[in-house]
């Protein structure tokens, strides 16, 4: 019952990170060793939403790019994926609420201080546009005459405008979630605030590229391969920062969360490389796409989990704050 909880030595397992721990974690104290913070109550709905929201945003951008560059197949895939992503996102967000019947209370206010409020309004803008854009893709199925014929004729331009509008809000949708996590007391999330939007932006593009590689006509996927490469560059550059956080970067490199993050990176590398070399192989393209999608899922769940770990262990709360006080000097610590 008193089985001693051995402090997991930084560096064990990865060979990295040990030198970044500036405070000897053995020194920290807390009330009966319990967490100082309340670990996030968000369920995996929210990790899932990080993925679906990013996917929707990336796909909307791809849809708009395809539209502007005349790739109708890719355009349709982009638009449909964007709609699917945003629909799933809405479901997940509402499902995660303690009182789902009150989801509309989110529209009482618009608070710049609340990334969730900002996100709500972004979603409120993005969702309908993405919907309209996707539905416009159904135009060819409508009869050519009569009132529906008018709709058939009007749908493409409306869809195009909506698609562009959705794309305009998409980068915000993809990156605000970085602020959503960072704007908390959760040490590993908060301290990662400079990186998270980039990781999420990259991850969003990677996932969307992945879906495109799987679903779009092979002839239209060239931009996706470039996009995958860019996504990997953004995400990996951002992700590199995570590990420079010191103690609070530890969960990104260790444990289950660390394994997820690493898996995300590996899949990203594999997927990107595959995308670049798979130009002629439909199957290889699809596999590469799947790796990119999986990478995004793993990264999101990894980041999500890392935050939970950091809030659950008081070490990540107390030790950095102690370190900060020590730097301020004895006068500051009173």
């Amino acid at each position, binding site marked *: 019952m008193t089985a001693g909880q051995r402090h997991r030595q930084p560096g064990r397992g990865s060979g990295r990170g040990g030198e970044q721990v500036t405070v000897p974690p053995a020194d920290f104290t807390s009330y009966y060793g319990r967490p100082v913070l309340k670990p996030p109550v968000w369920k995996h709905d929210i990790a899932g939403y990080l993925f679906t929201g990013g996917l929707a945003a990336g796909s909307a951008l791809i849809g708009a790019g395809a539209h502007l560059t005349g790739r109708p197949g890719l355009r349709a895939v982009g638009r449909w994926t964007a709609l699917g992503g945003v629909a799933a996102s809405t479901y997940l967000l509402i499902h995660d609420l303690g009182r789902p019947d009150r989801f509309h209370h989110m529209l009482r*206010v*618009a608070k710049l*201080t609340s990334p969730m409020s900002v996100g709500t309004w972004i979603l409120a803008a993005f969702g309908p546009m993405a919907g309209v854009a996707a539905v416009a893709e159904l135009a060819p199925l409508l009869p050519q005459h009569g009132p529906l014929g008018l709709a058939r004729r009007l749908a493409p331009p409306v869809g195009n405008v909506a698609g562009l509008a959705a794309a305009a809000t998409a980068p915000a949708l993809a990156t605000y979630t970085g602020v959503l996590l960072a704007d908390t007391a959760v040490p590993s999330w908060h301290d990662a605030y400079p990186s998270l939007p980039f990781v999420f932006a990259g991850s969003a593009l990677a996932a969307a590229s992945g879906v495109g590689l799987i679903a779009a006509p092979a002839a239209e996927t060239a931009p996706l391969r470039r996009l995958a490469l860019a996504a990997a560059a953004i995400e990996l550059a951002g992700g590199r920062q995570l590990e420079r956080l010191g103690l609070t970067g530890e969960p990104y490199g260790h444990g289950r969360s660390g394994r997820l993050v690493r898996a995300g990176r590996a899949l990203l590398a594999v997927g990107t490389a595959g995308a670049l070399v798979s130009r002629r192989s439909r199957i290889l393209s699809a596999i590469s796409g799947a790796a990119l999608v999986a990478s995004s899922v793993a990264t999101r769940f990894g980041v999500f989990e890392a935050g939970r770990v950091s809030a659950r262990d008081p070490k990540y709360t107390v030790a950095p704050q102690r370190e900060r006080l020590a730097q301020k000097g004895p006068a500051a610590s009173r």
Partner: protein
Amino acid sequence: MGVRRWVESWPLYRQLTGTDPLGRGAAAKSAGSLSLTARTETADSMARSVCPYCAVGCAQRVFVKDGQVTQIEGDPDSPISRGRLCPKGAASKSLVTSPFRQTTVRYRRPYSTQWEDLDLDTAMNMIADRVLAARDETWEDVDDAGRPLNRTLGISSLGGATLDNEENYLIKKLFTAMGALQIENQARI
């Protein structure tokens, strides 16, 4: 008009038009908060009472609404307690409104394995029967030397010390008149 009031009650509208652009306070206040008031303010009555636990004698205010106790708290007027209560005194409302309180007479027959219900009047009469029977059966008029005893040792009583003085007075008076000597109290313990 309705629409206008609806729009004006929309916190976002108040945010945009009022003094609270960030939606932190005035703009975000809900209908519930606007109408909030302490239930002591809306109580039908307030009785001045005394805590039933230890002997410090902390004064309590008992607030009642629709015949139910809605709050019990310390009475700041008291020179003894100055409105303060310990956890027990503070739990007085939960004590008197506890769902675990027994509010009906329960009766266990000799050799029975369970409780049954009993009417209060019936119970009172049954108890009176038993008191009189026990008294008659164990009555002692005089001792060996012929000195008066006037008593029964067949009946006992153990009273808690949360009884009122008036209650103790009647208990002692009745038992003494019955010759029932064996009354005891927590004060012995």
